[in-house]
């Protein structure tokens, strides 16, 4: 038996290829699409004209197929439940108004129950769609800008749906409460089962989605900031080749990433195995490098004794100065009236080996060391000076000889 529904389904089945093609986009009459096929689908209302010669799939049929295949385009809108909530409210109000007309009320309640089921189905579909989008991060866009736009789109969609769910909760609770009061327990139970028990999971699901979207929007903002900083750092490094770093105060808390570290690498200590050919070769190399036999024992040596070596005393050479000084000391010892050192030098060859000034100082030092009295013969003071500072000769006397008064008059002793 042929029915209108069977005819429609058979037509769709016969032209399934064209339906699939139309699901992807607008179809036009051409090589692979015949006018007859288009006409057949047009007759059952599956295709609708668009533009001059194009045809598109009926929106409800497209929606059904996408639901069934779980194919969601990048900007798939969530199904609206606002109109259905309004219908639910209107139907219940009419049921209240037509309380006496039993037949009409039954029809209205049937319609109301169908609306409740539709709302439940639509919400479940929306939640499924959102879950799929969340699990795939609705990644079917190619650019960052498109992703941002998509985020905004779904944020608005979920906000609107969230508002609708709140409204639905209010209306459903009101209808359920009033139905209970009016003795329509079946209807109240039906609403509880179909709507109120699911309300919490729907609201939680929407809340999760909104949180996810907020995080996603934040993440994209971070991505943009990262890329901007990367570009600027690259520019900084190129434009300022002398820049090495910056000063920062680390007295406070330090970010975790700066504390990243690693352990020092350990030197491997592998156990040599007979089966390891590399290790066998290594051991053979080491064995060949060993000395051929044990080294002979070295006899213990007696402890060495050390003797201090002292140079033999060397005879001191007799210098002309020494000879002259020896002679001078002897002569001074016998000279009761003293003698002049300069005059004495004139008569001694050894003393003449030294300049007069050197001789004078040497003889003075030697005589004073031998406790002889020596008196200097000073030069006259220079012009402008009150005292004489230089001497030209000295007179030496034997030991414990009194100083003649003449010397005192001549000047102070040095």
């Amino acid at each position, binding site marked *: 038996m042929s029915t209108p529904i069977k005819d429609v389904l058979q037509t769709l089945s016969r032209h399934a290829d064209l339906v699939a093609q139309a699901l992807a986009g607008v179809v036009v009459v051409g090589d692979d699409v015949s006018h007859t096929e288009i006409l057949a689908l047009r007759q059952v209302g599956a295709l609708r004209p668009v533009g001059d010669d194009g045809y598109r799939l009926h929106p409800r049929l497209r929606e059904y197929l996408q639901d069934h295949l779980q194919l969601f385009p990048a900007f798939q809108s969530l199904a609206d439940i606002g109109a259905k909530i309004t219908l639910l409210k209107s139907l219940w109000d009419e049921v209240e108004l037509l309380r006496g007309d039993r037949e009409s009320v039954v029809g209205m309640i049937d319609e109301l129950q169908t609306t409740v089921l539709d709302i439940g189905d639509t919400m479940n579909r929306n939640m499924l769609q959102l879950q799929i989008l969340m699990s795939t991060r609705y990644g079917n866009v190619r650019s960052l800008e498109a992703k941002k736009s998509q985020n905004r789109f779904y944020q608005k969609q979920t906000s609107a749906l969230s508002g609708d769910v709140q409204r639905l909760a209010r209306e459903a609770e009101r209808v359920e409460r009033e139905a209970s009061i009016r003795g329509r327990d079946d209807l109240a139970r039906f609403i509880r089962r179909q709507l109120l028990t699911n309300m919490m999971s729907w609201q939680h699901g929407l809340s999760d989605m909104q949180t996810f979207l907020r995080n996603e929007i934040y993440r994209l903002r971070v*991505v943009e900031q990262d890329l901007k900083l990367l570009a600027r750092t690259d520019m900084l490094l190129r434009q300022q080749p002398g820049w090495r770093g910056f000063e920062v105060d680390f007295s406070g808390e330090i970010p975790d990433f700066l504390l990243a570290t690693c352990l020092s690498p350990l030197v491997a200590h592998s156990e040599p195995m007979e089966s390891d050919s590399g290790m066998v070769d290594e051991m053979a190399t080491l064995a060949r490098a060993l000395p051929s036999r044990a080294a002979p024992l070295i006899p213990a040596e007696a402890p060495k004794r050390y003797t201090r070596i002292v140079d033999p005393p060397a005879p001191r050479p007799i210098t002309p100065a020494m000879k002259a000084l020896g002679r001078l000391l002897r002569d001074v010892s016998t000279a009761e009236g003293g003698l002049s050192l300069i005059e004495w030098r004139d008569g001694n060859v050894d003393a003449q080996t030294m300049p007069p000034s050197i001789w004078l100082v040497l003889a003075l030092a030697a005589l004073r060391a031998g406790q002889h009295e020596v008196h200097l013969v000073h030069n006259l003071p220079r012009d402008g000076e009150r005292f004489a500072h230089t001497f030209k000769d000295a007179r030496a006397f034997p030991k414990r000889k009194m100083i003649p008064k003449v010397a005192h008059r001549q000047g102070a002793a040095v």
Partner: protein
Amino acid sequence: MSRIESALKRLAEGCFVCAYHYPDEFETLQEAGGKRQAEEWLGLIGYRLARLGEDGAFFMAHSIVTNEMRSGLREEMRAVRTKLDPIVHFLEVLRETQGRDPHIHPGDMIWESEISEAVRANSRLERTLNEMREISGSRTTDSSIDRVRRVLEQLVKAGYIVETNAASKGYQVTGKVQYLYQLLNFINENTPLLSDDGVVDSIDTQLRLDVPDGDRSGLQSP
């Protein structure tokens, strides 16, 4: 070697364990048991388990910050350029080759063929790449493709990307790149060098050669 052992070894080596570079180890550290084991082991030797962000790569961090460490970090920041060169240049080249849709964040895919093609099509990028002295092993006779390959190899060696498709030369950005971004953010927060505060974009009115001198004043900005 068990997964947790491998994960601990990677952490001790100073690796950033993420879902793209060491997926098994990352999965182990994500689990409560694995994470607890890692924290206990690291705690015993004076370190701790840390992450780059909430869901970023795991790494080993110092548990206690000493004064010497603070001084060391200060010195590191004084010479932070050594940490930035040449990775920043390489990643910036990759970013520029990807046009308006750059993807150099953890998990993003990079294809050598696409990068090479973009470099060949853009003489400025080609010149930039040719002038890069930081590319290790590069020769003056290298083509742009060779240089792109060397850059990618160097990034693999540094742990910023990992080869996931050897046949078609596909690479995936690892979680370590977050370390670099966090460092850049830190520099931005502590220096005015990367900030755009006070920067005013302006376009000077262009002088036209075909306009007489007397009429130029009308073209100039007030």
